[in-house]
């Protein structure tokens, strides 16, 4: 167990180092254009070189890499080119906004998708199973910006119940959260439902469930005491990995609804070429993703006694 955790931890650190080296190298190759962005398009090469020199970007790269990593650990990601403020000033606020989105998403996603997944998996091939599974395939098949389009058409243009943008310009408004969360819920929820269903169906067809039913145990108790415990191990992993998906999903959803979160920050930076913001966002996104992989592996081991023993 300890061996496994240490190995995963080392792998996680190695991945973070590799990603940081890649991001640092990208900056190294784009140094001149970064200087051009900061100073303006009509500056000469000499002026750009002087600026780079003054900023200390002409020092040997190896030393600067370690300096950069040290700064990142202190929460200093450099200066945003587009916004002209330190990256950390915007970054944490945007992350907090996405965190709110993520919190409410998971608050609905976990109970709803586990419930429907279990309901579908109890009796494989039944009408209820078919209905839930088909709906789940359908909702995961609609890309986020397409489902955002459908939901906007229904709830904003047709019924007029909800606001179509979620910019939160007039202070925090929970109503503006509904559509972004609904879009993410439809896409991610369908996937978790299918995984839960598959896991539940597998458990229900196992020997010990048959034994429990045959020995005359009440059906409700078989489900609650025997089946659920084992069936909910696999979905745990899937739910942890949804954290990783969320980081992709929020880019589309935040851009569609003009929500001022992490995803729209990253896209704005990418469209503008704001390298320090891109570096900061990518590092954080990869860190969260790697951490979610790590936690899902550890959690899976802790929950599943069969793996723990061997």
């Amino acid at each position, binding site marked *: 167990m300890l061996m496994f955790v240490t190995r995963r931890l080392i*792998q996680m650190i*190695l*991945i973070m180092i*590799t*990603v940081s080296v890649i991001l640092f190298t*990208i900056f190294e190759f*784009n140094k001149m254009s970064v200087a051009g962005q900061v100073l303006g398009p009509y500056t000469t090469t000499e002026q750009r070189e002087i600026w780079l020199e003054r900023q200390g970007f002409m020092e040997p790269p190896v030393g600067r890499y370690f300096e950069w990593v040290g700064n990142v650990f202190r929460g200093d990601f450099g200066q945003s080119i587009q916004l002209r403020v330190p990256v950390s000033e915007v970054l944490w606020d945007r992350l907090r906004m996405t965190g709110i989105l993520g919190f409410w998403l998971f608050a609905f996603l976990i109970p709803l998708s586990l419930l429907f997944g279990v309901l579908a998996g109890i009796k494989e091939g039944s009408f209820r199973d078919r209905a839930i599974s*088909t709906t789940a*395939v*359908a909702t*995961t*098949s*609609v*890309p*986020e*910006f*397409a*489902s955002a*389009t*459908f939901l*906007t*058409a229904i709830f*904003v*243009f*047709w019924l007029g119940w909800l606001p*179509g943008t979620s910019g939160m310009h007039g202070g925090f408004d929970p109503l503006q959260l509904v559509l972004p969360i609904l879009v993410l819920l439809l896409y991610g929820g369908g996937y978790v439902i299918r995984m839960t269903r598959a896991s539940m169906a597998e458990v229900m067809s196992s020997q010990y469930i048959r034994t429990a039913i045959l020995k005359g145990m009440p059906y409700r108790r078989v489900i609650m005491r025997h089946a659920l415990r084992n069936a909910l191990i696999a979905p745990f992993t899937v739910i942890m990995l949804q954290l*990783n*998906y969320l*980081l*992709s*999903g929020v*880019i*589309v959803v935040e*851009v*569609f609804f003009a929500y001022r979160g992490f995803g729209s920050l*990253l*896209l704005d930076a*990418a*469209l503008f*070429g704001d390298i320090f913001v*891109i570096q900061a*966002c*990518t590092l954080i*996104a*990869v860190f969260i*993703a*790697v951490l979610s*992989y790590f936690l899902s592996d550890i959690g899976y081991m802790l929950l599943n006694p069969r793996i723990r023993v061997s």
Partner: protein
Amino acid sequence: MTDSQAQSTPAMPSRFMGLLRGIALMRESWFGMFGAALVLFWVIMAIIAPLLPLYDPLQSFTTLEPIGTEAFDGSGTHWLGTDNRGRDVLSRVIWGSQRVLIWASIAIVCAYIVGVTMGVIAGYLGGWIDDIVSFAANVLISFPVLVLYVLIIAFLGASGVNIVIAVTFTTAPIVMRIVRGLIMDLRTRDYVAAAQTRGESAWYIMFVELLPNARGPLIVDLCLRFGYTVVAIATLSFLGLGLPPPDPDWGLMIREAVPLGTYAGHVMLVPALALSTLILGFNMMADGLREISLRD
């Protein structure tokens, strides 16, 4: 050499029979059939788009009427109305299927070539080669998918070739992991040992003996990946990082139509519906195929 020829000659009709059997089995899964029908519909649309009596997708029919109104008066010749630049929506949706399917095919072929090659090599040779390839794949997989797409396109620029590169970077590692697992399972089989004893080269064993036996799960995966790639290409277009305008493109159509939503909602719904049905088709087809492959 004569041995392998003798083996491959009778294999031809049996392979053909296998294909027929596959189609026959497909009929047992209405789910898969429905998906295949959806995909086929868009493939046919993409192929016959030049033959259909459509308006030029790039031509602008500017009128003084508000956008989209022509769709509702019934007498209009633009069945689904026109978009923000007065271009025919129906024509653009049908032509758009061609664009997305062509680029997705190119991208998925590249990703599969890279992923399968890497997977076979890592799975068969093992050792330090496997360690390096697997680590590289792990690094790429740890990026949230869209973050990696945005990162690659932001630095390489938005163009068709760069989208193919981005898809290769995001998809190949996953394909590689699947193939690697399959090959590691297959390489202990007797026929591999036989080939080794015959003195066949490692390349021959990898690509002639092992790879064809790993194709089953790969076909199911191909269906899914194709769907994901179509989504990725459309999403990049929607975010403004995709194939350059003005050619019809579903993602771009939605992007341009959303601001008009209040008075011409259907203009954004049409490409969204087209995209969703195509992806639904791929996913249902993959589900159907998986169901069938698990049955026998």
